[in-house]
């Protein structure tokens, strides 16, 4: 079967699993097998079986590796000094670097001259082992003054990154900000500040508001900061003010769309002036019409309020016909309506919005909207296709009769 065929075939979408008559359906396969096999449950902290090793005859350890080599591997893991080798002269840069990489204990204090310190840093950076780099950087910070260290770091990005990463994980946010500001990278500092505040304040709306207002005026209103980031922070603060006003703990730490979902579920009928009204939130946070429509559709369809969905997404035109009007692109809308099990009538209204006859027919086939299929085929005067389609319908159903009546209509000039 061709790669794409399976996904393209409109038949498979409804009856997803049958490829041809020769292939069993999943239900049939499941019937041949039994119930799904339940593996080990996770209730016990640790299962008593070894996953796959017991089932294979592994090579005994002493055949796999000689015992001496095995000892060496264990020694390397522990980072201890080997007993059979006399430690090298440990105050050279090379020896220190090697010890750092091997995880052995070091006396960095022997490196007192700036030259020796610089060599150590350059060596660690050249080798690229992060553990060694960070150890050396922290040693330099301890023993050199700030200005000298920052000079050394600013020309060695890898070392600098390790230091930044260290400051971030240790939550030393003031030092991080100072460092980045000095390096002329204040926009980054602003984002780290934001991340730090979000992480430390958690659900505390008031705390978040206070701190975010603070970084807005101190860090985000500086030249060099991207205007859109500043706007996003301003919007964040606006949103937090809304959350503070409505004062519902279940909405804290929720996103705008999650709050909109809440408002649609519980405050749908409240007017635009009210703080809990979906419209208020929508205007305040500049939710795009597409996102708004999407939330509204999902909320009401999920709670089976199709009357609301219909009144929102359909309108009568001046001829009195019902048409669909939504910001959701029509194919996406159809697929979602189908998933939400909308009525065939709603689906048909939606399909009729599509101008291109071929697209309309393709989608009508896909979602089995019989009335639209029959109408489209009639428009195309395609008797053969309609006859074939009639065969797929269950005899004496409403659609079947419609198809049959259409085919019998004497006034139509069929093209085939």
């Amino acid at each position: 079967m061709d790669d794409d065929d399976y996904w393209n075939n409109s038949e498979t979408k409804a009856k997803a699993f049958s490829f041809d008559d020769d292939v069993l359906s999943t239900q049939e396969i499941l019937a041949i097998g039994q119930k799904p096999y339940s593996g080990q449950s996770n209730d016990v902290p640790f299962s008593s079986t070894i996953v796959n090793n017991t089932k294979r005859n592994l090579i005994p350890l002493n055949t796999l590796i000689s015992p001496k080599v095995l000892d060496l591997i264990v020694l390397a893991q522990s980072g201890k000094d080997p007993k059979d080798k006399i430690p090298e002269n440990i105050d050279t840069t090379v020896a220190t670097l090697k010890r750092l990489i091997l995880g052995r204990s070091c006396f960095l204090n022997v490196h007192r001259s700036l030259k020796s310190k610089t060599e150590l840093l350059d060596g660690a950076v050249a080798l690229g082992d992060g553990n060694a780099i960070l150890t050396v950087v922290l040693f330099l910070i301890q023993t050199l003054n700030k200005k000298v260290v920052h000079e050394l770091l600013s020309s060695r990005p890898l070392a600098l990154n390790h230091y930044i990463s260290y400051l971030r994980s240790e939550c030393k946010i003031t030092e991080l900000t100072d460092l980045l500001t000095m390096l002329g990278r204040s926009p980054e500092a602003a984002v780290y500040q934001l991340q730090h505040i979000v992480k430390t304040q958690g659900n505390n709306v008031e705390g978040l508001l206070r701190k975010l207002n603070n970084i807005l005026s101190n860090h985000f209103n500086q030249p060099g900061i991207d205007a859109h980031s500043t706007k996003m922070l301003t919007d964040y603060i606006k949103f937090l003010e809304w959350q503070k006003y409505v004062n519902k703990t279940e909405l804290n730490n929720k996103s705008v769309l999650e709050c909109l979902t809440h408002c649609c579920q519980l405050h749908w009928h409240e007017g635009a002036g009210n703080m809990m009204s979906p419209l208020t939130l929508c205007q305040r946070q500049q939710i795009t019409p597409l996102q708004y429509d999407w939330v509204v559709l999902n909320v009401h369809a999920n709670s089976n309020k199709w009357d609301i969905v219909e009144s929102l997404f359909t309108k009568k035109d001046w001829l009195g016909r019902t048409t669909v009007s939504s910001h959701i692109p029509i194919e996406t809308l159809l697929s979602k309506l189908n998933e939400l099990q909308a009525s065939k009538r709603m689906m048909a209204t939606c399909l009729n919005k599509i101008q291109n006859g071929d697209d309309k027919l393709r989608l009508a086939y896909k979602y089995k909207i019989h009335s639209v299929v029959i109408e489209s085929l009639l428009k195309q005067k395609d008797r053969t296709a309609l006859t074939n389609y009639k065969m797929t319908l269950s005899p004496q159903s409403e659609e079947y009769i419609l198809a049959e009546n259409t085919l019998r209509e004497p006034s139509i000039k069929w093209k085939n």
Partner: protein
Amino acid sequence: MDHPLSLKLASLSLVSQHKLECILSTCGNKIDFIIDPMLIKPLERICGVTWLRQHGVDKIYKMDPQLGATANTKRAYLIPACLHKYKCVLDQIASVLSLNPSLSETKCFHIIIVPKTMSTYDSILESKGLYDIVQLHSFSWELFNLDDQLLSLELPFLYKQVFVEQNQSLLSSIAMSLWSLFHVTGRPKCILSLGKVSSSVLDVLEVYKESYQRDFINVDKSQDFGSLIIMDRDQDYASSLLTPATYTGLLNEIFSINCGQLDLNVKETKIKKGKVNFTTEEKSDKKTVITLDSFTDTLYGEIKHRHFSEVLSVLSSKAKLLKNEDIKALGIQEMKDYVTTKLQQVTLFKHNLVNHVLACETIIAEMNNKFENLTQTECEMLNNRNKKGNYTYVDEHFGTDIHVYNSLRLMCLLSLTQGLSYDEYNSLVSKYLLAFGYKFLYVFNNLISAGLLVQPSSPKLSLNISHLSNLSERLPKWQTAFQNTANKLKQLPQTESENSPGYVFNGSYIPLVAAMCNTLLTSESLLEVLNKLSPLNDLKVGGAIIDKQKIGMETLNEKLSNLSLNNFELSCKDAKTILKTLKSDSKMNGGINIKPRTVLVYIIGGVTYAEIAACDVIQTITNSKIFIASDCVSSGSDVMAANL
């Protein structure tokens, strides 16, 4: 007598077991073993409960910050090298000590850290006043043999550390895993490394090799791998970002897989979990696990790399075979034989069959409607066609069915292949933040520093630099830098052909590692390999193959002390330089004949199932063996999750 390579690799777990045994032996008896939940699955592959009991463990607990009193006073914690978790354990120990200060004299606290303790951990211990009270141990387990020809170090946090936080502290652990592996398999003669992180790993490996050089180590013993290709994840992000079309690739899109174990949760898939929730559905707690190992599940072995469209028909034909097996016709003796020998196998086979069918059903339910449009759009992006339409598709996706990871993934792919304008970029950012919370503003900075997203400069700034950026105009209009390289390496198939590894992405892209393997396995000489791979920057060559080219025999110490920052070559040499030498030296006749038959591929930052499948095609075409190793098997959404 030499053992088959696959068995050697499976036996690596014994080395891990021995390493753990050595640590436990220093902890004493009657230990409460407290294990971080994410390490349970990997540990199960190393030892069982009985084994732990035999080695001093009395009770086993899951690590929990709220964990109260335990049965014994001796505690050994097993945690990953994560600063937060480490501090959490230290706090717990401190609170135990505050209740019972006399314990500080007894050396009864041990923390075993996977894969290693960092030097900062020691100073934290000291600053908390716990030095000498708590003993730290590094547990560097070996690569796990998850499946046939698949090895993983199972350190899923490594990508985040190395590529997002730019912290390379765990590189030495990767180097150590290779160093131990080569004691078992021998060292490959030819090493290609792509990316800075990979070349650092090889340098650290060199330090290990030289420092632990002993006369009893026989370097020239077996050579199971002819070649090693080691590559940084960020060298081929497309392979992470694209939607895979293979069975395993799609499994990893829908279900969570941890250490080769798939959690068959059909209700709460990764796709559902990542979307804005409009309903209040109950969560299921039924657990079914599939072990993704073709050694125990031959059916899995047969379907794992297949294009998904073929999988159900294979499953169906297997089901028919089962159905046709007529047991009633057997005589009594035959029946007995059947029960004792075959029945168990058949039952297991049925279980596996049913689970795979359920998994397929779920994949179809989740992907059916989207797959076609999604892969088509991705293909257009890769070839830099229909830019406006692609943006509209992504924008619509952000406005409607937005997904916390997968939507970002599309944005990144579009940004890397065709670029985003300032306004387009911001429109997507706004929609994302409305859906998931403004607090995620930092995520985009992470994506930019990980190289997944290119930040467009604001219109004001770009006016000033526009006349400087004539460089990009030298490229033909229909190509961006991405297409330029991908075309040179023949990664964008223009016609559909059978047996192309591109099928893993529905025929639109060949993963870089597969392209590299193919070049290496089909070229006559090193010169040819390097010529073909010349579009790649940061490519280096190492191993015995270049030893002949080294001028004089510098020792490690000499090299280290002569190092200069800009031109540092410890273990491997820049490919462009070697290429020049090879070209100029006619005597060498195109250089060394390599032609490896077995290749080890190591991807730092997670390998995808699509890449594994693509390499499988290459090994079949070239009649060779390609083994894949990485720090974990990851999917595009894992890469995104690491940036959050």
